[in-house]
Structures are given as structure tokens and as C-alpha cells.
């Protein structure tokens, strides 16, 4: 029984939660299963799914952990839209809530999807600080005794928004290009690469831009802007991808004018 802040109790409302079920060893094709759940007024969609798991049907499988929209495990399609179920209030929906696994991902089981494809793209953009010089002779860049790099608040502001991605993959479910071009790097991976490109401490731009222009190129993005619409942390991956395009064009043009020495070598 929950209540508004003024205290009077709001009775739970009965809702039908439709969950997509699929067990690779038993089902040929995913099937829908309906559960009737007494939903408290302030419940999130995840609370309803947890109620089903605890009380009604323990065989439902799904991923979740922090329930405070910061770990990114509980992304699912709710009534056709990719959502973080721990952050989406049940009140926004009528009495039928259809929960499916994330679109554009192979299904492992019930609401659990295959992440290896995403992780592979994630690692492909070399998401780490790359320094031209190794640490030892890099001392000049470090901030006097504290061995940290010096970075102004403004420099931090250039990439901060893109560093807020919690890898919940909702943008991959919303992106039409991901649906049709399997090797497209995808919004989150490009946003992460761009985050490092924009970090004043990183010197790996050239290498990452080469990756951005290679297989699964950033130019496959057709700026549907859906990824930024569904992003629960307003990372704005669409901005990152299109800024990455802009950088890639400049880099490409520079490459024509002054062929730069290949910058391979340091990993």
C-alpha cells in the first residue's frame, strides 16, 4: 500500500503484464504469457516483473541489479519502446503492459538478450586513454606533484555528457541502422569513442577516426535521432555520432593534403 506524500493510501491497481517467454531448448519461437499483477501506485515496471518472478512464476528470466537507473542491466521493450524498466513508472501505462526483450538483439532467454555483439563493438573503438609518449617521459603533462593531468572545467565539459553512458543498449534497439546493418558500430560505441576523442588527456584521435571510417562506419548513421530520444541519461549519442562524422571528414581531408605517418604502434 503506497500513498501520496499527503498520506492518504492509494490501493494497488490490477494490471495485466504480458511477458515474452522463450527457452531455446523448449520453444521454437518466442511466445507471450500474461500475468495479472496488483501494482502499487508508485511502482516501476521492474517492480511488477520482480513481483511476477517472486510470487507468480519463478521461471521468468531477466537481468537487473541496481534498481536506481545507473547499472544499465534492465533495458527492455515496454509497449514497443525501449525503456529502463527500473526508471519507468507503471502509472504511465494503462492496464495492459507488454514487455519484450530489447529489439535488434538475438534473444538468449525470455527477456535476456545476447550482449557479446555489443561488447565486441564496444572494444573495437579502443575506449581508453591513449598517450603518444609512455608514462615516464610524459611527466611534463602531469600536474606538478600530484601526477594527475591538468584539465580545465571547460575541457571536462567537452566530453562529460558522452561519458554518462551506462551501456543500457536502448539506443541500439531504437536505431534503424542497427536493425539493418549488423556491423554498424552503433550509437553507444561511437559516443564512447567520441568521448575519448574529446578528452583533452587523450591523443588517440587519429586511430579512432580510422576505425570510425572503417567497417561499420559512423557514416552509416542516417540521423534518425531516435537514439537520443530513448537515452535515459541524455548522453545524446546522435550528437556524438554526427560530431564524429564532422571530425572524420576533417581528418580525411587532412589525410589527403598531408599524408600523416601511420600512427599504429602503441596499443
Amino acid at each position, binding site marked *: 500500500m503506497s500513498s501520496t506524500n499527503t498520506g492518504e493510501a492509494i490501493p494497488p491497481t490490477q494490471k495485466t503484464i504480458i511477458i515474452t517467454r522463450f527457452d531455446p531448448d523448449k520453444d521454437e519461437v518466442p511466445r507471450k504469457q500474461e500475468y495479472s499483477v496488483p501494482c502499487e501506485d508508485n511502482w516501476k515496471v521492474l517492480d511488477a516483473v520482480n513481483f511476477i518472478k517472486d510470487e507468480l512464476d519463478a521461471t521468468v528470466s531477466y537481468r537487473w541489479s541496481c534498481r536506481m537507473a545507473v547499472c544499465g542491466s534492465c533495458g527492455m521493450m515496454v509497449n514497443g519502446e525501449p525503456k529502463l524498466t527500473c526508471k519507468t513508472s507503471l502509472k504511465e501505462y494503462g492496464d495492459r503492459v507488454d514487455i519484450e526483450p530489447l529489439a535488434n538483439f538475438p534473444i538468449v532467454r525470455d527477456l535476456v538478450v545476447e550482449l557479446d555483439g555489443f561488447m565486441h563493438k564496444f572494444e573495437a573503438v579502443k575506449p581508453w586513454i591513449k598517450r603518444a609518449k609512455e608514462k615516464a617521459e610524459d611527466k611534463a603533462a602531469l600536474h606538478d606533484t600530484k601526477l594527475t593531468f591538468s584539465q580545465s572545467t571547460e575541457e571536462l565539459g567537452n566530453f562529460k555528457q558522452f561519458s554518462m553512458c551506462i551501456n543500457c543498449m536502448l539506443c541500439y534497439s531504437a536505431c534503424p541502422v542497427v*536493425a539493418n546493418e549488423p556491423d554498424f558500430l552503433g550509437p553507444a560505441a561511437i559516443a564512447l569513442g567520441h568521448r575519448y576523442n574529446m578528452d583533452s588527456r587523450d591523443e588517440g584521435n587519429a586511430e579512432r577516426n580510422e576505425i570510425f571510417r572503417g567497417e561499420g562506419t559512423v*557514416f552509416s548513421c542516417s540521423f534518425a535521432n531516435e537514439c537520443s530520444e530513448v537515452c535515459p541519461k541524455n548522453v545524446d549519442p546522435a550528437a556524438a555520432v554526427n560530431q564524429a562524422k564532422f571530425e572524420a571528414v576533417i581528418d580525411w581531408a587532412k589525410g589527403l593534403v598531408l599524408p600523416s605517418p601511420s600512427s599504429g604502434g602503441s596499443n
Partner: protein
Amino acid sequence: MKTLLLKLEPLIWFMFGQGILIGTILLTGWILVVGVLMPLGIVDPANLDYMRARELATASLFGVIPLGQLILAALLVLPLWKGAHHIRSLLVDFGGGERDGIVGGLLYLVAIVGSGMGIAAVVGL
């Protein structure tokens, strides 16, 4: 084909960008007057008779910069690149991922041919 496209993507996207930005800005006036108002008679087509059209088309700034022809070239060429690029992504969005290489190549070929014709026509004025 796909690898060739991959190499030229930055240039293609740049042309698309000019196409959608400058193309849209230039096209609006042209379509409004030449395409809609004059044929409907709201604006008298005589205002754009042969002499007037040539005068505009070959107008130049300080006798040096062929402004008329430059704007005309942009108006003819740039929209083709926006068109080709967007049709390509439309086809990809409808499940055309695998054939994207060929389809994309053909569309850009159309844009190149169109650009050639446009520039030839403008230069020939």
C-alpha cells in the same frame, strides 16, 4: 563496391551536408516562383522571359565572380546529393543492408551524372 564506397563516405557525406543545407535554402525560392507561382499565373511568367532569365543566369559580381552561374550550379547539383544519400539510407532502413554497396553506388552515379549535366548546362550559358 562496398569498400570503394567506404573510402569515399566522408566526401559523400560532406556533399550530402551541403546538399541538404545549401540545397534546401536555394531550392525554396526557385520552386516557389518557377514551379508554383508562375505556372499558376499568380506571378506573370513574362517577368522571367528568355532575356530576363539569361540576364539573371549570367549575372556577375563586379564583372569577375559569375555569381549567377555559381548559385545556379549549386541549385542544380547539391540537391541531387541529398536525394541520392537519403534514398540510399531509406532503402537500408527497409532491410537493404546487404545490397547497400550496389544500390548506394548506383544512386551516387546518378548524382554524379546529374552534377555533370548541371555544370555543363550552367557553363554552356
